[in-house]
């Protein structure tokens, strides 16, 4: 109820702002700002350095960068902030599962005005997410979780199945500890029927049992990205699952890491721009989303940040080499809905497997 009245209030203030815009246009135009959340560290810095200045130059809208930890933790923060009536960011980056979750929670995300985002039509339609209320998320960029190895220690495997070979990988791999880090999608694609295996509880159990066979080969079940980064650099592990873009950057810096696309491929996830329901910057946000959907900007992000573009390579001016740096084939599409609908069951079964309980 308080949210409702607050929203009405916001609408009225927005109306007032619009009215004053007519009277004092130059002053207001200079004041257009937008608070955008992105994953902190290198990622956010790249956005601040390469993307936001270009956007401000093109539109006159100043961007204030907000650090978000990752999308699922950010969802908790935003949920609490929304309940409290004031949010730290207008636009946030959410992974697809978090976005679906936010839409199920309700009252957190505003509908996007797609007529103000014509460039989104150029994206693969998979990347514009609509729930019951309308479009609420437009893809920002995508990223691959990839198979990585230490090329000084082993050669690139042709299949994920080779990681199960204890002769070669005993106590040597770093795999994500989270049940929904898409490792199960890899198991499904490598040993089962892919996404369809997630349809039944028995299928999920079979996936987890197959993953359990890998346990003797895993030296590190990482929960934070930095753990895996350090372990690869220190040679505590000689292979595993890690982000493609970061791996390639590390390799470019001379660290012993090589990203591999085995025959089953690597899982592809993507982030969406979502507008907070409490934000009164809908127009500015639409301009930014439109800007980031532009093929030139998608290519810019691929070059400068290492994310995969959300459209075909031919629509961008990326060279084959540049494209291979950020993307690859085939890609494994995660079973998002199963992860959400069978959340408790999957998490507990996975944790049980890890704990040997």
């Amino acid at each position, binding site marked *: 109820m308080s949210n409702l009245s607050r929203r009405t209030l916001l609408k009225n203030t927005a109306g007032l702002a619009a009215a004053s815009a007519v009277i004092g246009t130059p002053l207001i135009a200079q004041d257009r700002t937008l608070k955008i959340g992105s994953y902190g560290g290198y990622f956010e810095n790249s956005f601040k350095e390469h993307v936001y200045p270009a956007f401000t130059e093109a539109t006159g809208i100043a961007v204030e960068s907000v650090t978000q930890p990752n999308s*699922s*933790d950010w*969802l*908790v923060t935003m*949920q609490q902030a929304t309940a409290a009536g004031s949010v730290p960011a207008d636009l946030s980056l959410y992974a697809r*599962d*978090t976005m*679906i*979750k936010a839409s*199920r*929670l309700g009252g957190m995300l505003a509908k996007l005005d797609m007529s103000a985002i014509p460039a989104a039509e150029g994206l693969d339609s998979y990347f514009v997410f609509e729930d019951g209320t309308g479009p609420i998320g437009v893809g920002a960029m995508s990223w691959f979780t990839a198979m990585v190895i230490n090329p000084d*220690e082993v050669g690139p495997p042709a299949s994920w199945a080779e990681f199960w070979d204890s002769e070669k990988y*005993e*106590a*040597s791999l770093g795999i994500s*500890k*989270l049940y*929904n880090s898409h490792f199960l999608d890899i198991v499904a694609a490598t040993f089962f029927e892919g996404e369809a295996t997630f349809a039944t509880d028995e299928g999920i159990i079979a996936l987890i049992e197959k993953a359990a066979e890998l346990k003797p080969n895993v*030296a*590190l*079940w990482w*929960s*934070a990205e930095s*753990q895996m980064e*350090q372990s690869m*650099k*220190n*040679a*505590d592990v000689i292979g595993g699952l890690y982000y493609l873009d970061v791996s390639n950057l590390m390799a470019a810096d001379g660290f012993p890491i090589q990203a591999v696309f085995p025959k089953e491929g690597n899982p592809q996830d993507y982030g969406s721009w979502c507008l907070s329901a409490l934000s009164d910057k809908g127009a500015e946000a639409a301009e930014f989303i439109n800007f980031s959907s532009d093929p030139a900007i998608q290519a810019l992000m691929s070059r400068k940040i290492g994310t995969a573009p959300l459209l075909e390579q031919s629509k961008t001016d990326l060279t084959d080499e540049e494209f291979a740096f950020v993307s690859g084939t085939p890609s494994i599409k995660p079973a998002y809905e199963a992860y*959400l*609908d*069978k*959340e*408790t*069951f999957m*998490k*507990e079964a996975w*944790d*049980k497997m*890890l*704990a*040997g*309980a």
Partner: protein
Amino acid sequence: MSHSESLTLPAAPPSPAFNPARLLPALLTALILLLCVTPFLLVIAIAFGQKIEGAGWEWAFTFANFQRFFVGAGWPEDVTYLYLQRLWYSLYYAVIASLLAVLTAFPFTLCLTRLSRRAQSRWLVFILASLSLSEVFVVMGWDVLFSNRSGLPMVFRETGLTDWLKANGLFDLLREWGLASPRNVKFKTSAFATVMCMAYLVWPYAVILLYPALSRLDQSQIEAARTMGATPRQVLTTVILPAVRLPLTGAVLLLFVFLLGTYVAVTVFAEPAKQTTAISVYESVRGSTLNAPFGAAQAVILLVTAATFLGLGQLLMLRGRP
């Protein structure tokens, strides 16, 4: 806060009908209650909430979260003691690390009290200062110490110790214990690394807790015992230890409760099979499942466990009192 408020009180004009000096303690109590007890009550209330699959949670009154802790979410078709196992590891690490810290801090502190005043205060300042290191930095330090390229494993490799172990067959034993990969020894992830780091974390507290008691030890009793021909060992077991038994037990208990909630060290150094309730709480609340009620239920159970152990410790100490 109460201190500064009471200092400013005399400046206020006294009123015969309404004495603010009387109201102040009541107000402060109310404020403290509000700030301390409200979050506490909220956690307990949330523990009875209900999880909505694929979304968040809602207020409710269900014991399902507590039930899940003991038998798992799939009960009765499927039973798991996963969360009890985590509670067990919480206790396991906390007991060993607190004992280790107190047992090593005891001789150190005993020696410390024999030093000159000047040296004692220098040591104490140093130990107090080291408390300001956050858990994150301490863990980072130990992480480097245990890393393959820069820490102990490198020392093992470079000094030829690894090759020696391999030649003598001891290496395979280490591999069985999970303390080696086919290439070199490895100390992470292991219970060993976890306990070492946790003991290190609380070691300064152990010294500070033991220092007052040990520095008040009656030297004349020790000297009398020595004069009467007691060996140093006899002095330790018959004079010193009985005198400081209570502070020793108290220190172990306090550090134990403190260590129950250790988060960073366990995340980094313990393998998933040996992680604790604190990690599980964090994963429920902040992780991808948004299951605050289950997280709160686990936190409440951890709290009850800590309280039980403190109560038992208290009983033990009271019974042991002459």
